C-alpha cells in the first residue's frame, strides 16, 4: 500500500513540466561549464597557482575531467537546492493549490503515510537529480578533458594523484545527496504550511541564502551562530578533498543533517495531521 502511494506520488512528480526543469538546467549548465573550462581553464589555474609558479615549474596537465567535476560541485552546490525545492516545495502546497487534498485523503491512506510517501517520492527525485549531475559531470568531463591529478585550492593546495580522485568525487556526490535531502525536507515542511508552491520555494531559498551569507561573514557574533545553521554542513563534501580526510567531521555533519531531516519531517507530519483541509 505504502509503495503504491509512493509510485503514485512519483507519477505525479514526473507528470509535471517543472520536474524536468532541474534535469534540463543541469544538462545545459554542465556542458557549458566544461566547455568554458576547456577553453579558458588554464587562465583559472594560472591565477590560482601563481605563488607556486615563483618557485616551481609545472609538469603535466592539471586541467582535466576531475577538476571540471570538482569546479562544477563548487559552483553549483549553492544553486542545486533551488532545483530541488522547485519540486519538493510543491509536494503538499501543490495539492492544496489545486484542491485535490480532500479527494486524496478520502483514500484509505493515513495522513502520516501520505506525508511519508510524498517525502519518499521527493527524496527519489532529489537522488535522481544528483545522480544525473554526477554521471553527466564525471563522464562528460572525462570524455572531453580526460583524467589526471586533481588540484584543490583552499588555504592549503592539495594535489591528489589520479588514482586517488574518483572515490573522493563519488563520496562528495553521495554526501551531496544527504545535503539535498535536507533541503527537500525543509521545503516539504514549509510546503505543509502553504496553499501555493511559490511561498515554500521562495522561503526555502531565502533561508538557505541567508544562512550561507551569515556563515560566510567572519564576524564574532555570526561565528557563535554558525554551528547551529544546517547550511554550515551542506558543503562538508569538501572535506573529502583534504589529506588526511577528517571522517569524524564528515560523520558529524551527516548526523547533523539527518537530525535536521528528522526535525523537518516530524514538523511536517505534526502540522499536516492537525491541518484543517478546506480544499
Amino acid at each position, binding site marked *: 500500500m505504502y509503495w503504491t502511494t509512493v509510485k503514485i506520488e512519483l507519477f505525479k512528480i514526473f507528470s509535471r513540466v517543472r520536474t524536468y526543469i532541474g534535469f534540463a538546467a543541469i544538462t545545459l549548465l554542465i556542458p557549458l561549464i566544461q566547455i568554458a573550462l576547456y577553453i579558458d581553464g588554464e587562465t*583559472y589555474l594560472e*591565477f*590560482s597557482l*601563481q*605563488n*607556486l609558479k*615563483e*618557485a*616551481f*615549474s*609545472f*609538469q*603535466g*596537465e*592539471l586541467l582535466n575531467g576531475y577538476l571540471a567535476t570538482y*569546479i562544477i560541485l*563548487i*559552483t553549483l552546490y549553492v544553486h542545486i537546492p533551488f532545483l530541488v525545492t522547485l519540486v519538493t516545495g510543491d509536494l503538499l502546497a501543490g495539492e492544496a493549490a489545486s484542491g485535490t487534498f480532500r479527494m486524496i485523503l478520502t483514500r484509505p491512506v493515513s495522513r502520516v503515510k501520505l506525508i511519508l510517501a510524498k517525502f519518499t517520492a521527493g527524496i527519489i527525485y532529489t537522488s535522481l537529480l544528483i545522480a544525473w549531475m554526477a554521471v553527466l559531470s564525471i563522464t562528460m568531463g572525462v570524455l572531453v578533458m580526460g583524467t*589526471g*591529478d586533481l*588540484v584543490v*585550492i*583552499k*588555504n*592549503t*593546495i*592539495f*594535489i*591528489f*594523484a*589520479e588514482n*586517488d580522485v574518483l572515490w573522493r568525487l563519488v563520496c562528495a556526490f553521495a554526501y551531496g545527496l544527504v545535503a539535498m535531502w535536507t533541503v527537500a525536507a525543509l521545503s516539504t515542511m514549509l510546503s505543509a504550511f502553504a496553499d501555493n508552491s511559490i511561498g515554500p520555494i521562495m522561503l526555502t531559498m531565502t533561508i538557505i541564502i541567508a544562512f*550561507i551569507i551569515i*556563515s*560566510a561573514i*567572519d564576524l564574532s557574533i555570526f561565528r557563535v551562530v554558525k554551528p547551529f545553521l544546517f547550511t*554550515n554542513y551542506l*558543503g562538508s563534501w*569538501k572535506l573529502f578533498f583534504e*589529506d588526511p580526510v577528517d571522517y569524524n567531521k564528515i560523520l558529524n555533519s551527516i548526523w547533523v543533517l539527518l537530525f535536521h531531516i528528522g526535525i523537518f519531517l516530524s514538523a511536517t507530519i505534526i502540522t499536516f495531521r492537525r491541518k484543517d483541509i478546506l480544499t
Partner: protein
Amino acid sequence: MNQKRTYKILFSALTCMLLFDFGASGQDADLLIKNVREKFQKVKEYEAAVSIKIDVDFVKIPDKTGTIWFMQPDHIKVKTKGFSLLPKRGMNFSPNQLLEGGFTPIWIKKEVVDGHNTEVVKVIPQSDDSDILISTLWIDPVKNIIRKLESTTRNEGTFVMQFSYGKLYSGYELPEKIIFDFDLRKNEIPLGLTGDFESERPKDPKPKNTRGTVTIFYSDYIVNQGKALQYFKGKGD
C-alpha cells in the same frame, strides 16, 4: 735595540705569511672551482630515475617518480607520471648555471659537512644582471664535488642545496640525493577561486614568507651513453 730588531723581523715574517696565505687562498678558490667544473664537464649527458618529495606547509602533493635527462651545458628535462611541481633551481645541479659568466671566488675557510672535509668558497658574479647575488660553495677538495651550496638571489630569497653522493655511476660522482631548501611567498588565494566559503580558519590578507624543502632522489644514472642526446634530439630541444 735587539728587542726592536726582533719585533721588526717578527712583523716582516707575519706580513709575508699573511700575504702568502691570502695569495695561496685566492689561487685555491680558483683552482677548486676549476676542478669542480672540469670534473662535471666530463658528464656530457645522463639519464636517471628521480623521486621528488615536496615539503611545503601550504602544499600537499604525493611523492612523484619519473625520469630526468640532462645534456651539457644546461639542457634539462624531467618527466613524471601525472602532475608534478619541479623546483625551478633544484633539479639542475650542474655548476655551470651557477658559475656562468665572470665571477670572483673568495676562499673563506675549511669546514666539515656531513663528515667530509670541505673548503668554503664564496662566489660573487661579476655581471650586474645576474639573478644570483652571492653563492657559498662547500667543495670537497679530494673528490672535486660540491657538498653544499647556498645562494642569495635578487628576487627569490635564499636557497640551500645539500648533496649526498653514493656509489660511482660509470666512474662519475653524481648525487643520489639533493635536499633543496628555499624561500617561498604564500599569498592568500581569493575566495572565489577556492570555493572555501565556510572555512573556519581566519584569512590573513598579507603575503607570508615561508620555507619549502624539496628532496630529490636520483638513481640508475646512465651517463654518456647517448640516452639524453636521443631524448633531446627527439624533442628537437
